[in-house]
Each structure stands twice: as C-alpha cells, then as structure tokens.
C-alpha cells in the first residue's frame, strides 16, 4: 500500500474529534470489571491510551482481551467501572462513541452472501457517510480489492476477507480503530500487508487498539503494550521498557531434555553463565514472551 495514497485519503477526513480528546487521552479505562456468572473476565482494569498511540493488549487466550474490546466498542456492558473514548462515556453516550470508532473483530462478521461493495455500502449508510460511492471505491483500492468489488465475499480467500473486514472498519475514517487478533490464521505475506497498514495509520494519527498473542506482532507495531493475564493487567510499558525490566538478554540451555531460560542483564553475563552449561546453548536478546514467562510462568502463544 502506497503511503501517499493513505495520506491523501486521510487528509480528506473531516475533523470529528471532540476538542477535549485532541489534547487529552483518547481511551480512558477506569477500573473496568466484567463478571460472567462465577468467572471474572476482567478484574479492575485501568488504562489510559493517548491519541495516536498503537496500543497492543497481549495475553493468552481467555485473558480478557476480547472482553476489553467488546466493552470499549459498546457491545458489552461492564459489571463495574467506567470507560470513555474521545471523552465520551461508553455506557452513557454510546452513539457518540460509535461515531468515532471502527471495529474489526476477531471473527470475520461480513455478510458472506453479499458482495464486497454491498457490505461496505450497508456499513457506510449505517454511519450516514457522505460521498459513499467515492469512499467505497477508494477503500477497496487501498485494500487491493477493486477488481473484486462485485464478487460475493463467500468466494474470497481468508486473507482477502480479513482485508475487507479492516477496510470496512476504516471506511468511516475512525479516530480509534480496534483490531482484535487482526492477523490470526493469515500467511506471513498478508500479515506483513496488515502490519504496513497499521504503520500507515499510525503516521496519520489514528489511534489503534489491537489485541494479539503473536509476540513479534506486538514488538513490530506497538508503541506501548499491556500484558493481560486472567483479567488483570500485569505489565504496561513500551516493548523496550518491559524487556529491560526483565533483563535484556536470554540464555537458553538444555537440562534433562527440557529447554530452560535464564534472563541476563548483558550479553557478557549470559556468556559467563553459559560456561557451566552442557550441550547446545543460545544467547539472544529478550522478547515480550520472556517478559510474560517471567511474570506468569506461562507462555503467551498458542499451545504447540
């Protein structure tokens, strides 16, 4: 995707930001709790996200990432606490919130029996968009789906469906874009395209809130990440800060047939520690997965 195209597209966006949020915080989450029956999905989550940030919420399946997005996008009402987007309370002013957000959920909820163009048209009309035909044409071009505009979505590949889903969320030029597991199940090439898209959005000042359990995705895209485990925020900071907190380097070695990890402050420290280990060793820079393992004793990624 061409950066100039994106810039042109976004410059044509009407300024719809509430003034307060331009100078303040885009997303305000204040002690949000969500309880399903006897299970606590979110436990007093508090988080502030500034305008223009690409924020990544990381955690294993069932940590509460999707629940957080559902509450912020007015799909789910919290059991306790408050949240606001662009200064609008998600429970008290849901329509104002819906006007400035775009959502690409984890499951591809396009109408598969309608064409790409029909899907976008219905969505645009729901948002009372002007110049709908023009906007649809532009967004389909940016998503690389122009030739497919009159094809039924059912016949699209998984990657094309995902691109259309994100294009739909971008059709209204939202101030805040929510991406729930945007690259799950996609091949590496499509994943890179979506990463490029998020980077372009960042440059255009769109606030992006994404969830993922791919470590490299969070490291590649996010200005800040929060790590969620069992409904609680257990770490928050830039990827560099978080890695620095646990030590910048990792020594991997074998012991009784298992891989063990040892966190070290420096490469030299890792080196000297490795002298006493038998068998193959690896010394590498630490990543967010190491942070997570250190904090919880579990892995983030899907079980292998």
């Amino acid at each position: 995707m061409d950066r100039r195209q994106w810039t042109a597209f976004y410059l044509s966006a009407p300024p719809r930001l509430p003034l307060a949020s331009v100078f303040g915080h885009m997303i305000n989450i204040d002690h949000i709790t969500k309880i399903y029956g006897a299970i606590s999905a979110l436990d007093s989550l508090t988080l502030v996200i500034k305008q223009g940030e690409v924020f990544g919420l990381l955690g294993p399946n069932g940590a509460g990432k999707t629940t957080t997005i559902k509450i912020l996008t007015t799909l789910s009402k919290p059991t306790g606490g408050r949240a606001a987007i662009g200064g609008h309370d998600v429970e008290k002013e849901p329509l104002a919130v819906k006007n400035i957000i775009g959502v690409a959920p984890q499951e591809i909820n396009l109408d598969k029996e309608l064409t790409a163009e029909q899907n976008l048209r219905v969505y645009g009309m729901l948002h009372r968009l002007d110049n709908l035909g023009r906007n649809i044409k532009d967004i389909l071009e940016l998503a690389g789906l122009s030739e497919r505009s009159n094809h039924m979505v059912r016949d699209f590949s998984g990657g094309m469906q995902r691109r259309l889903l994100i294009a739909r969320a971008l059709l209204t030029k939202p101030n805040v874009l929510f991406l729930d597991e945007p690259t799950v199940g996609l091949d590496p090439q499509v994943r890179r395209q979506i990463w490029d898209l998020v980077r372009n959005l960042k440059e255009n000042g769109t606030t992006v809130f994404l969830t993922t359990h791919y470590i490299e995705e969070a490291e590649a895209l996010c200005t800040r990440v929060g790590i969620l485990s069992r409904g609680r925020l257990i770490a928050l900071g830039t990827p560099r800060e978080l890695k620095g907190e646990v030590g910048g380097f990792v020594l991997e070695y074998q012991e009784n047939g298992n891989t063990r990890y040892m966190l070290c402050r420096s490469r030299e420290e890792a080196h000297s520690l490795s002298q006493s280990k038998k068998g193959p060793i690896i010394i590498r820079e630490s990543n967010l997965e190491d942070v997570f393992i250190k904090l919880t004793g579990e892995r983030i990624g899907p079980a292998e």
Partner: protein
Amino acid sequence: MFGYYPVFLREMMLFRRRFLRLGYFFSAMFAPLLYLLAFGLGLGHRISIAGGSYLDFLLPGLIAMSSMNNSYTWIATSLTVGRLHFRTFQVFIQSPVSPCAIVLGEVLAGMVRGLFASSMILLVGLFLGSGLYFMPLFIPALLLNCFLFASLGVLSGLRAKSHEDTATFSNFFILPMAFFGGTFFPIEELPRWLQFVIRILPLAHTNKLMRAKCMGPDCLLSLAVLVIFAVIFFVISVYLVRTYSE
C-alpha cells in the same frame, strides 16, 4: 430514526440473493400451497361455510397464516443466526443507529417477506377459482398481522439461545395458532374453553378481520387487540436491543 433504512436494505439484499435460488423459493412456498391444494380442492366442493364455498373461506385464512409464518420465521432465523453464528448483528450494535431504528428495519424486512408470501397464495387461490372479496379490513389486518409477527420474530431472534429455540417456539406457539386460530375452520366449532384461549391470541383476530364483511364494534375490538400485541412486541424488542450486552 432514518437508520432503519440500511438495516432494511441489508435484509432485502439477502432476500434477493436467496430468492434468486429457485429451490429456496419453492420450499418456502410449498407448505401453504399444499394446504391450499389439498384442503381447497379436496374438501372445497363438499363443504360450504357461511354460505360460501370452502375455498373462499380457506383462502383468507391461508393468507393470514403464511403472512404470519413468513414474517416471523425469516426475521427470527436471520437474527438468531446473525447474532449467534455469523455475528453480523453485532455490526448494528456497534454502529451509530438507535435501537428503535434497528428493530424497525428488521420488522419492515419481515413484513416484506410476509406480504410477498401472501400475495403468492392469493394469486394461486384466484387462479383456482376462489371468488375472494376484498373485505374493507383485509389490507389493514394483513399489514398489522405482518408487523406484529415480524416484531415477534425480532423478539425471539434476540432472546433465542440457539437456532433450535426459534424452531421450538414456532412449533409450540406459531403452528398451533395456525391450526386453531380459524385458518381451516371457524373457531366457533371448537369447545368453549379452547375458543377462549384462541381469542387471546392474535391470529384469530386477523382471520376475523380479513373475513369481516363490514366494520362492527367487535371488529374494532379485534383491531385493538392486534395493535396492542404489535406495540408490546415492538417495544420489548427495542428494549432488548437497548440493553444488549454480551
């Protein structure tokens, strides 16, 4: 309020898509046509009701029944599947449209389905030689009936926990009402206690209005019953959308 239009338009786009598959169209129209042919032709010449032929009696009843079935089933199924399986309903919730507009859009779509099915039956009935007289309240009763059962469809589509739930509801509520509500025979033939039960339910009133030769006070009562049901179902549906939470 004008947000109803995209909601309605989407259902119409889907309807057109299904409609283009002819198999779907025939299976949807099969049951009422079967009733019309089997009862209308089979019993039609032997029985007369209220001085007219049986076919003349049956045709408005079948129109009321299929308008009820189609208005209800299409929307109940579409909402249940869209909400629980495809999760397309969530797009409405996350869009800046009022709950009232969402319900209105879905109800209008259900009405179109109901009216479409009714007019098909009507055409076949006329072709078979029924001398259907357009009674003064035929059209208003038909419209109210479609609105009422489409609203009920929205209601049950929002409440159902699974696709089977809407089918169960249909079997225990919609189907018995179709059989006892004056579609195939006048409800006066039924035992008194059953008549009482049937008169509480809406379909009997639709049937009565569609066959009524003039507007008497009891017609106004029936109209009032239909309006009250329609308002109740619609308001509950709007409330369910407003308080929607996963």
